[in-house]
Structures are given as structure tokens and as C-alpha cells.
């Protein structure tokens, strides 16, 4: 039986978490919806993909969103470290394109601890650092009756068990609903490992 999602989500504060997979932006949106106060979203300036604030409104008020465009990953990490350590912004999201070294991940972790803030790194698959508190693999799932279903797989957890949940986002209520996995018995997949 997988652990209850509420034990892992909302994410633990004063820690840095990681999300990967094609559904990672949606995961970040859901994380933004859990807190209040400004959100700093650090991206590298050369990326063409951008957050659409109009759609972000389904998760949280776009006025809360601040975007920092860093020149490269090194700068992005530096900005994230400053913001995490400062404490003025409760949630910092960093989009990364290259592997995150253990040293960089640990620095972010220490900064989050000193600032009492939460960090979330959106990483390409398999490029996380061992310092992360949790790592989530998020994929959108097709469902005949629902177009917001996602599968969140907790693939690394420093302080607890792993698990898989199917969730859907209720944009009207800005609420996360856990739904049984499509075509499977609840909990048949998420054996703790």
C-alpha cells in the first residue's frame, strides 16, 4: 500500500526538491498553489519555452510570479542560492538543463535551510543531484474522461517511502485530487523500494 500523498505533498519546507519528466511544469504549478507569497521562477535566458501566466492562473495568481532570466546554469544556480538564502520568497523554482552536481545541490540545500524556503529544481530526467530531499517523476496520462490527469511518481525520498499517485488538478477550486490509477487497483504499482 503506498503511503498517503499528503505525507509528501505539499513538499517539505526548508528543503530543495526535484521534479523531472514532461509533467514537471504542471507539478511546479501545483506546488505554487500550495503556498502563498511571491514565487521566483529562475530560467536560463536562451530557452524558448516560457511559462504562460494566463495558464498559470489555473494554479495560482500570476501576479505572484517573478521570473529571473539567468545567462547560464551557473548563474541560474547562483540566483537560486541567493533567493533561497534570503527568505523573502518562500518558493524558488529553477529550470535546469544540465546535470546538477552534488556540490551545487548541497549548496542549494544549505541555502534553503538557512532561509527557511522551499526550492524546486525542474531537471531533465536522470540529471538530479543526490542532495535533493525528494525527486518526482511526473508524466501526463491520457484518460478518456479527464484532461488534467497526471501520474506523479516519487522516485527518491530521503526521509520516507516512495510511491505512485495519479492526480488531477481541479482548476476551478485550485485543488489537487488523488484519483485511483486508470485500469488498476489502487496501490497495485507503488511498492516501496
Amino acid at each position, binding site marked *: 500500500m503506498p503511503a498517503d500523498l499528503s505525507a509528501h505533498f505539499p513538499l517539505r519546507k526548508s528543503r530543495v526538491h526535484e521534479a523531472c519528466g*514532461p*509533467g514537471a*511544469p*504542471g507539478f511546479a*504549478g501545483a506546488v505554487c498553489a500550495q503556498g502563498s*507569497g*511571491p514565487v*521566483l521562477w529562475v530560467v536560463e*535566458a536562451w530557452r*524558448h*519555452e*516560457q*511559462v*504562460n*501566466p*494566463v*495558464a*498559470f*492562473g*489555473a*494554479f495560482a*495568481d*500570476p*501576479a*505572484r*510570479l*517573478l*521570473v*529571473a*532570466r*539567468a*545567462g547560464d546554469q551557473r*548563474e541560474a544556480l*547562483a*540566483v537560486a542560492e*541567493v*533567493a533561497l538564502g*534570503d*527568505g*523573502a*520568497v518562500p518558493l524558488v523554482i529553477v529550470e535546469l538543463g544540465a546535470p546538477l552536481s552534488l556540490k551545487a545541490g548541497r549548496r542549494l540545500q544549505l541555502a534553503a535551510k538557512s532561509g527557511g524556503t522551499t526550492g524546486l529544481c525542474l531537471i531533465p530526467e536522470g540529471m538530479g543531484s543526490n542532495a535533493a530531499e525528494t525527486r518526482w517523476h511526473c*508524466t*501526463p*496520462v*491520457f484518460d*478518456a474522461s479527464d*484532461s*488534467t490527469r*497526471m*501520474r506523479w511518481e516519487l522516485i527518491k525520498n530521503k526521509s520516507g517511502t516512495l510511491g505512485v499517485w495519479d492526480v488531477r*488538478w481541479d482548476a476551478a477550486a485550485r485543488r489537487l485530487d488523488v484519483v485511483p490509477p486508470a485500469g488498476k487497483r489502487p496501490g497495485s504499482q507503488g511498492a516501496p523500494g
Partner: protein
Amino acid sequence: MWFPRLGSDRVLRARPVEGPFALTLKQNNAERLSCLNALAEGQGLHRGMAYADARAFCPDLITRPADPAQEARFLHALRRWATRYCPWVGLEGADGLVLDITGSAHLWGGEGEMLADMRARMARTGVSVRLGLADTRGAAWALARHGEGVAPPGAALAALGPLPVAALRLEQATSVALQRLGLRTVADLAAAPRAPLARRFGPGLLLRLDQASGAQAEEISPLADPPHFGVRMALPDPIGLADDVMAGTERLLSRLCARLKAHEMGARVLCLTLRRVDQGSQQLELRLASAMRDPHRILPLFRRGVEGIEAGFGIDQLRLEAVQIEPLPMQQLGHGGPPGQDGLDDLVTRIGNRIGLENVLRFLPADSHIPERAFLIAPAAYSAPENGPWVAPRPRPLRLFPPEPIAGSGARPPKHFRWRRMAFAAARATGPERIAPEWWLEDDNWRSGVRDYWQVETLQGRRLWLYYTPQNPGWFVQGEFA
């Protein structure tokens, strides 16, 4: 001091011209001469003459357009320069200065020497000047404009006697009327009975006469220097440690902030100049996310820059200047403004000094159906958050990217397609939502005409935002839903 050719002298100082020269100013839809040099006046031209007439008189006249704002700035610079003679210097009209040299003439060895010094210096700079010195402001004005000279103390009216009545700062109509009455000179006017004059011309005329003679007082109001937001500190021994530099900066900052507070200003850009013993200097620029004047908040923001300074043999002079300032009125503490706003501003400043203040952005709503124009991106430091309505007639993708073409044909979304080297099978398509380009704005991306947007859910899970351009057939992916 009267500068009869302020405008043309200013231009000619920068670019000397041989021959007649004039500045033209557009007045009432006609180009008129506003200022001319001595050679041009010698050709019979005068101020206020139409430019076309002047060209007829003097075919080789060289002209440039006048710039009244620059002339005013030049006059202010001269005013500042003139404070070397006495502290009370005011402006007199658009082309004159008035100096109250009471008590400072002896520093130059007497009034005559002082005037000679003024004349010599102005001659060296190439600005023609006419000087008048008298007990009263009115008499000095008259002497400067109508025959230079020095009026002996207590005899202002005697010195003015032979001058025309226009020297009394009268209006054109009044002086013409006086001349018609036969009162051509100041002496004639002073000798005439006062009561009929007051009845005929009002009190203004006699006021001017009394001001010239000294019977009526007239004050000179010196212009205040614009406040300068810069402070500096010289050290007896060079310093090199970052902590020492920070301590010095703190002292400068408290002085600067006190000055900013007195003027109700806040600094937006600060520049710290560190001069080293070997005469080299290094500059640290701090751009703030909002105008502020709180030394305790600004000081930590300097920390990162100061640690990167190369001290060399030591630093012996610090200079801090508020390069850009903004009005920042006093604010009530405790009320108004969301809590934590200061902390956020400081954070934006710190990030902005690392990646550039224009790279910290926020989104503002915009009124457009075009997906990439439904929001504005504004620097967070120069905009306020806006809770405006976000235009979203239909669901919009969370990720937007420049359109990426895919293979497909027909107006319905393709059943199978490849995107980013991945194969997808469309399971459900919602649409179309037709969006027409905004014809009033030129946009290259929308050259291909209207777009039919489809929300395509794939069996593989990913939900993409596709569009089809019927006028220019082709399929593109522009976004991905959460």
C-alpha cells in the same frame, strides 16, 4: 552682468564661424532671428527680424536653430561660476545675472578691479558681457543695458540721467508714450511732477523710477544650488580589507541617506568610487529595485561588490554618489503596503545586480487574444503587480514556445504525428478555436494568416496545443498543457 549675445556666443564657443552668424527661433510660424553676433549686427540685422528678410540683407549669413533650454542651462552654469565673486547671485531675465557684491568687492581690491577681472575672464571665454554697477538693482540694470558704467554711491539717479527712459525696465508701450510726451531721458522723468505721471501711467512707472533711485527697496534672491547627492571621504592611511571598506561605506551611506531624507528623495542607482593609492580607481554601481534611503538596507547590498574589489596597495579615498534619484516621500510606518515588500525589493536588487535588473521580470495582463500577447513582460523593479483580468477564453497551455512545424495535412489534427523525435497518436482533439491575427499590429509570426487551434491529447499522455493555418496549410505545435 548682461550677456547681450548669450545664445550665439554659446554656439560659437563650440564651433567658431567666420562672418555674420545668427540663431533662428520659430515664432508664430515664422523663423526669426533670436540672437546674432557683432558682424551680423554690423550688416544691419537686428533681433526679431524675419529670417527670410535677413537672408535678403545678408546673403552669406550663417544660421543655426536656437535652443532655449540649452541657453538656460548655460546661464545657470554662468550663475554658478559667478558665485566666485559673491555668494548672492540671481538670474536677471533670460540673459543676465544680478550679483549683490556688498561686502565682497574689497576681496578683489575694489569695485573697479572686480569689474576688470570679470571682463577679462569673460573675454577669455569668448562670451560678450556688459557690466553695470550701482547702488540699486534697477540702476545697475540700466547701466548694463544702456551704456556701461559705474554709478558712484548715492548718485544713481545722476548716473542714469542721460539714459533713455527704456532703461528703467519699462514696458514697450509705456516708454513709447513717455517719449511722445517729450520725456526722453531719465533725468526728464525724474524732474517731472509725480502725481500726473501716476495718474497717467499707474504706479508701475514710479515704482521703477524709485527702485532705480533707491527710494524703493528691491531685493536680490539668489538661486539655490541644486542639491548634490554625493559624499566622499579621504583616509589618512590606505585600507584594504573588505570589512574596512564596508565600514567606510557605512559612514558615507549614513551621510548620503540623511541628505536624501532631507530632500525627500530616494536613490535608484548608487555609484561607489574607490580610489587607490596608485591613483587608479574602481567603481561599483548598485542599481536598486526601488528607490530607497535606508542605510541599513542598502549597505548589505554593497557587500558582494566590495568583496570583488582589487585593493592593490590600499584605498585612500571613497566617494559615494546617488547617480539616479527619485522622489520618495515620507511614509507612515506600520500601515499601507503589503508586509515583506521591502525584503522582496532587496532580493530583486541583489539578483538584479548579478544578472541585470532588466532580467528580473514579472507578468502583467494585456488585452489580446493572441496567446503570446495576452501578457506583458515587465522588469519587476519598474512595475507594480497588477491583478488585472487575464484574457483566457479557452484553456491555454502552461508552456509556450515558438511554433514547431510537424507533418500533417487537412483541417483535422493528424492521427499520428512526430514531434521532437517522438511519435504520438492523437486520442482526443478539442477544437478548433480560430484566432485571427491583429491586423493593426505588424507581426511576422502571424504572416501565415488565421490559425485554428486544437487541444490534442495523445495516447502517450502529453497534451499539446496544435494549430493549423488554413490560408497557408501547415501544422504546428505551439504549447504544452500541464
